[in-house]
C-alpha cells in the first residue's frame, strides 16, 4: 500500500488490443522478467528493501521469494551504499544481482559504488572482472513525493563511462529490457516510472529480449521529431495524436536506452523532419535533453531547420503540493504547443 498507489491506479491509459496477443499489466511484465531470469539462471538473485514484503516493490516481486527461496530473493538493511557494493562484489564473482529501489533518490546514496566502482571495475582491472548487475528504481511523481522522493537521476549518469541506462515505456519493453539488462555483462540501471505501472500491454509469455542501445519509432511522421523515453513517450504520443488531428505529423522516437544512446535513429529522423523536440521526465539542464539537443547541433546540424526545443523540468526542485505539481510537470499540451511553434515558424 504505497501512498501513491491510489493515484497511479486512477490514471487512464489506452487499452491494448487483445487480438494482438496476451495483455498483462506493466507490473506483471516486470514480475515475469524477474521470475524467468531467476528460473533460468541460478546466478540471478533479487535484493532490495521490502522485495519480500506484502507490497512487493509495487507488486513487481510478488511471489518470488516463496518460489525461489529467501537466499535468492531477499530484503536488505537500510544501507544503500554497502548494498550497491555488495551487488557489485557478487557480480564480480559469478552472480547476477538485481538490486531494486523504491526511488532513484536512494541510489544517490550509492553513487560512489555505482559511479566510481561498479561502472569502472571492468576497465580498471583490464577486463579481468565483469560486473553484470542491474540497478532497478522507480521514479516517483505526484501525491506529494516532493523534492526528495521524485528525482529522475538518469541525466546525472549520462557521462559515466561503463554504465548502461535503460528506461522502458511499455510493459513489453519493461520485460524485454529487464531481461536484457540481467543478461548484460555490465552494470545496467533500469529506471521505471511510477506512472506507467498500471499501464496494460501486449506481452509475450516466455523469454525475449529488447536490445539495449536501440531506439524505436513509436510513430512515424515527417514534420517533427519528438524524442524521449519512459513516461515522456506517453506524453509525446498523446501530443502526437492531438497534432495529427491538426495535420502535423510527428516521428516519436522512444530511445529505450539513454546510455549508450542510439544516435542513428535520432539523426535519421532529424534528416526527414529537420525539427526536434526532446522530452524528458527529468530536469532540462545538463541531462538527456541537453545531450540530444547537442547531438542534433553536432551531428545533425545540416538537417536542422529550426531551434531545438527541450521539454522537461524547470531548474527547480520538485514541490510536494498538488497545485504546485501541476505547474511543475510538463504535459502533452505543452509538447503539442511547442511543436506547433516549431512547425509554423
Amino acid at each position, binding site marked *: 500500500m504505497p501512498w501513491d498507489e*491510489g493515484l497511479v491506479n486512477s490514471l487512464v491509459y489506452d487499452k491494448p488490443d487483445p487480438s494482438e496477443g496476451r495483455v498483462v499489466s506493466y507490473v506483471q511484465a516486470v514480475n515475469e522478467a524477474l521470475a524467468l531470469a531467476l528460473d533460468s539462471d541460478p546466478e540471478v538473485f533479487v535484493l532490495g528493501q*521490502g522485495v519480500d514484503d506484502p*507490497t512487493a516493490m509495487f507488486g513487481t516481486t510478488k511471489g518470488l521469494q516463496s518460489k525461489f527461496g529467501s537466499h535468492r530473493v531477499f530484503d536488505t538493511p537500510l544501507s544503500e551504499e554497502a548494498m550497491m557494493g555488495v551487488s557489485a562484489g557478487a557480480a564480480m564473482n559469478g552472480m547476477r544481482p538485481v538490486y531494486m529501489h523504491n526511488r532513484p533518490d536512494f541510489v544517490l546514496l550509492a553513487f560512489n559504488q555505482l559511479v566510481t566502482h561498479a561502472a569502472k571495475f571492468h576497465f580498471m582491472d583490464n577486463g579481468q572482472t565483469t560486473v553484470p548487475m542491474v540497478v532497478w528504481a522507480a521514479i516517483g511523481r505526484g501525491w506529494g513525493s516532493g523534492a526528495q522522493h521524485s528525482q529522475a537521476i538518469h541525466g546525472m549518469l549520462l557521462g559515466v563511462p561503463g554504465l548502461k541506462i535503460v528506461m522502458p515505456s511499455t510493459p513489453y519493453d519493461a520485460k524485454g529490457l529487464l531481461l536484457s539488462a540481467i543478461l548484460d555483462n555490465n552494470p545496467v540501471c533500469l529506471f521505471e516510472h511510477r506512472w506507467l505501472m498500471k499501464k496494460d500491454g501486449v506481452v509475450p509469455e516466455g523469454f525475449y529480449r529488447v536490445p539495449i542501445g536501440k531506439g524505436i519509432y513509436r510513430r512515424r511522421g515527417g514534420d517533427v521529431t519528438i524524442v524521449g523515453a519512459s513516461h515522456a513517450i506517453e506524453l509525446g504520443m498523446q501530443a502526437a495524436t492531438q497534432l495529427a488531428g491538426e495535420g502535423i505529423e510527428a516521428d516519436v522516437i522512444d530511445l529505450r536506452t539513454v546510455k549508450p544512446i542510439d544516435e542513428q535513429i535520432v539523426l535519421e529522423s532529424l534528416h526527414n523532419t529537420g525539427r526536434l523536440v526532446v522530452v524528458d521526465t527529468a530536469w532540462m539542464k545538463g541531462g538527456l535533453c541537453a545531450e540530444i539537443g547537442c547531438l542534433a547541433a553536432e551531428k545533425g546540424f545540416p538537417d536542422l531547420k529550426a531551434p531545438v526545443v527541450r521539454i522537461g523540468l524547470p531548474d527547480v526542485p520538485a514541490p510536494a503540493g498538488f497545485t504546485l505539481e501541476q505547474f511543475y510537470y510538463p504535459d502533452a499540451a505543452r509538447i503539442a504547443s511547442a511543436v506547433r511553434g516549431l512547425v509554423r515558424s
Partner: protein
Amino acid sequence: MASNIRYPYKGQGDQGFDVFAGAHAPDALVGLYRAMLRIRLIEEEIERRYHQDQMKTPIHLVIGQEAAAVGCCSALRLSDLVYSSHRTHGAYLAKGGDLKMMLSEMHCRINGCVGSRGGSMHLIDKAVGMAGTSAIVGGVVPIAVGAALAIQMKREDRVVVVFIGDATTEEGVMAESLNFSALKKVPIVFFCENNFYSVQSPLATRQPARDIRAWAESHRMPALSVDGVNVLAVRDTVSKAVAHARAGRGPTFIEVPVYRFRAHGGAGDDSKTGYRDVAERAAWEAVDPLLLFRQFLARTAQLTDASVMHMEAEIASEIAGAFEHALASPNPTEADLYRHVYAD
C-alpha cells in the same frame, strides 16, 4: 498467541510511572497527558479524512508513539532544536508546531508551514525550533550534528535532538555522525524510536541480534534505553541527556522501544497483510501509552473521566477549526513554484 509476538514489550507497564511522578506537579502530569491525547486525536482525525484525498500527501502516523515525542520534547526549551526523519507529526506538535499550519501544509495550501513545498514529511517551523526534516532515512542526522556544531561554535545555550528510527541505525551516515559528534562533543541527543520495523521489514531481516544501545555506546558516548510507552521515563531520560549536552559533555544516544499501531504509511493498520502478527500489535495496544498513563493518573487520583472528556471536547473543537482553516486556505500559484530555489 504469544509465540507470534516477535517483539514483545519489555517495560513495566503502568507500574513504571511511580518512580518518576513525584518529581512533577500534578498539573504538569495532566499537561503531558493532554499533549499526548491531542496528538492522538489529531492523528485519528487525519486518518479518518485521509481517504477523501484532500490531503494529497504521504502520511506516517505516530499513533502508539505519542509518549516518545511528548516525553522528549517536554524536556526541551523552545530555543532547543529538533530535527526529524519522515515520521514528523509527533515531534512537530510536541515541539510546539502550529496545528493550522500543519494541516494547511497537508492540504497543500500556500499557508502551510512550508508553503506546500514539503507536505507531511517536511513539517518545519523554525520559530518553535522544529528545525528540519528529511524524507531520506538518516539524511537529517548529520545535519542535526552540524546544527549542534554551530551551537557549540557560537557558544549558545541550546541542544539539538534528532528523531530517528531503528532502521536509521543501518545507514552508514549514522555511524559517521556518532563518531564525529563524540569526537567533538557537540550538544546533541540521538533519539532513536525503535518500533522494530522499517516499512514492513522486521528488525531481524536487517540487523543481526545486536544491541543497538551497545552499538551506539561503542562510538564512545553514553547510550541509554528507556521504555517508550512511559512518557515520564522518556522525559526523565531525555532531561538527563540534555543536561549532559548543555554542560558541554557531548552527545547521548537513547534507544526508545515503541510500537506503531498503524501501517508504516497511510491510514489504517496493515498487520493483516502478514508482515507482523495482529497479536503482536494487540499485545502492544494493551500497553498503549495513553491508556497506561491515564490508568496511572486515575489510580493516583489526578485525572477523572470527566476531565478527559472535557479535554477531548476542547481538542476536537481545535482540530475541527484547524481543518476548516486549512480547507478554506488558498492554493499556491504558479509564481510560488519559482520562489526560494536560490536564496538572495
